[in-house]
């Protein structure tokens, strides 16, 4: 993903056509994520869960066009740490601007869809208990202060991780998966556990919705990973196949653990395993061999199926396992580049298995630690600041009743379900009568 601006750069129609489609695919992942997350929470806060993803689309788009794109992908301001504000408000960019072989405006939009889903991913760690107003402030701040710098380090012109360090990340193990996972961990520590965490049964209320969301995510992931080739070419095809492969072995790995450990293969396990495999192949899909993709997906499926249990032992309520799936899966995929990278994919660097020694693995490790620490500390600081000023945790009564009713004045379903805490009498006749009579 190294952006190259050449004076004689020409738009390639094939590359542009594919990237247009890929951009739409990646955008679809965020509504898909909303359904994936929404099905996992209880009926009383499912709409709030969906809303946290949907508002991320709107908020991140606005700040990206205002300053985010320029700071991430504008000319380096020095040291490979951040871009300049040269293109703030998309200044100086028009239909004729070219980035590589595609229009710059398309490249900027493609990158925007990554920033959107990364912000939305964090919401899973603080399900059912975040103040909506605080989330609306957190997302733009976080996008500018956390996502944008990391994106610049990894993919921006002269960004230090790719240019100086030489760590590889094809489609976003560092800016997307590790950043969202580390930020999710920070936020769930600031907000504290849900009322009743480890005491009440908090069953997913709609597993078919989770499966639909996982399917949409998988579909969109082809745009995410194969689109990151920034062209309609062989590398895109290889990344595409690696993406399918790792999703499959992730699914099988997670189900295998469940069958051995719990006695049943579950639908939630299948969905989670596929997503874990896809998370892990995100950084590595453009650098590992097909054998590498098989192992990356399998490793993520197996390890993440255990990692989601850590929160109960260590007492952090990462409600929908952003840490267990995205942070852990992202680390696995980013590190395994150092093992399975092949020259035919990377055009140079090779992993341990293909004679490259430990050099690449070391670079990957440095990048993982730097990005993980930065995202965690910055997100912790922003969340703590918002908690002190606006309050980030919802009122206890609101949380108990459910955020759907108390924040949005809606409930997702007509009928309450025993044990899921749907408010009784939420839709009374008297409230319906308040609707303004038609003229």
């Amino acid at each position, binding site marked *: 993903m190294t952006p190259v601006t050449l004076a004689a750069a020409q738009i390639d129609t094939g590359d542009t056509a594919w990237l247009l489609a890929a951009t739409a695919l990646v955008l679809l992942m965020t509504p898909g994520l909303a359904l994936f997350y929404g099905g996992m929470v209880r009926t009383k806060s499912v709409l709030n869960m969906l809303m946290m993803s949907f508002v991320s689309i709107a908020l991140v788009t606005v700040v990206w066009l205002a300053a985010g794109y320029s700071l991430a992908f504008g000319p380096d301001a020095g040291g490979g740490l951040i871009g300049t504000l040269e293109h703030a408000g998309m200044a100086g960019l028009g239909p004729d601007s070219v980035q590589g072989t595609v229009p710059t405006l398309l490249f900027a939009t493609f990158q925007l869809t990554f920033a959107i889903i990364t912000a939305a991913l964090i919401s899973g760690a603080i399900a059912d208990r975040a103040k909506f107003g605080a989330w609306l402030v957190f997302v733009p701040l976080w996008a500018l202060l956390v996502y944008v710098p990391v994106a610049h380090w990894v993919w921006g012109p002269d960004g230090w991780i790719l240019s100086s360090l030489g760590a590889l990340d094809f489609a976003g193990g560092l800016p997307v998966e590790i950043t969202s996972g580390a930020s999710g961990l920070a936020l769930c520590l600031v907000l504290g556990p849900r009322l009743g965490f480890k005491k009440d*049964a908090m*069953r*997913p209320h709609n597993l078919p919705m989770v499966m639909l969301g996982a399917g949409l995510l998988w579909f969109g992931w082809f745009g995410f990973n194969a689109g990151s080739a920034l062209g309609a070419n062989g590398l895109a095809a290889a990344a595409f196949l690696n993406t399918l492969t790792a999703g499959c072995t992730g699914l099988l790995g997670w189900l295998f653990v*469940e069958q051995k*450990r*719990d006695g*049943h293969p*579950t639908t*939630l*396990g299948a969905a*989670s395993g596929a997503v874990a495999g896809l998370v892990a192949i995100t950084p590595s899909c453009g650098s590992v061999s097909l054998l590498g993709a098989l192992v990356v997906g399998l490793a993520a499926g197996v390890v993440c*199926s*255990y990692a*989601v*249990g850590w929160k*109960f032992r260590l007492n952090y309520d990462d409600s929908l*396992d952003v840490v*267990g799936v995205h942070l852990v899966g992202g680390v696995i995929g980013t590190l395994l580049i150092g093992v399975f990278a092949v020259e035919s994919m990377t055009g140079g660097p090779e992993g341990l298995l293909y004679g490259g020694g430990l050099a690449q693995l070391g670079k990957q490790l440095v990048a993982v630690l730097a990005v993980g620490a930065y995202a965690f500390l910055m997100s912790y600081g922003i969340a703590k600041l918002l908690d002190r000023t606006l309050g980030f945790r919802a009122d206890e009564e609101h949380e108990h009743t459910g955020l759907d009713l108390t924040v949005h004045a809606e409930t997702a379903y007509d009928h309450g379900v*025993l*044990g899921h805490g749907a408010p009784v009498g939420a839709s009374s006749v008297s409230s319906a009568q308040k609707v303004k009579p038609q003229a």
Partner: protein
Amino acid sequence: MKLITAIVKPYRLDEVKTALQELGVHGLTVTEASGYGRQRGHTEVYRGAEYQVDLVPKVRIEVVVEDADSETVMDAIVKAARTGKIGDGKVWSVPVETVVRVRTGERGPDAL
């Protein structure tokens, strides 16, 4: 008259209905119910976390019959609902003072 109430496994409902129809019982009421007895609940596992679900789904069948038929009807329900495994349910009867058919106003056994 007697009110017979049966709490049985949902999948035995069809057999119980058929058995009652064969005995000439004209009507019954079925409600979805949940509860537990010796069977207790069951365990569900989500991402490796176990949740104990105390309440097991059952159906509640209610039928009002004449005193003379009550034993036969109860026996028929028990026979149709039995699987021999834990959680087969319970059947009981209580005396009913009077019954009125809402449409016609008939009272007592005529209203059945």
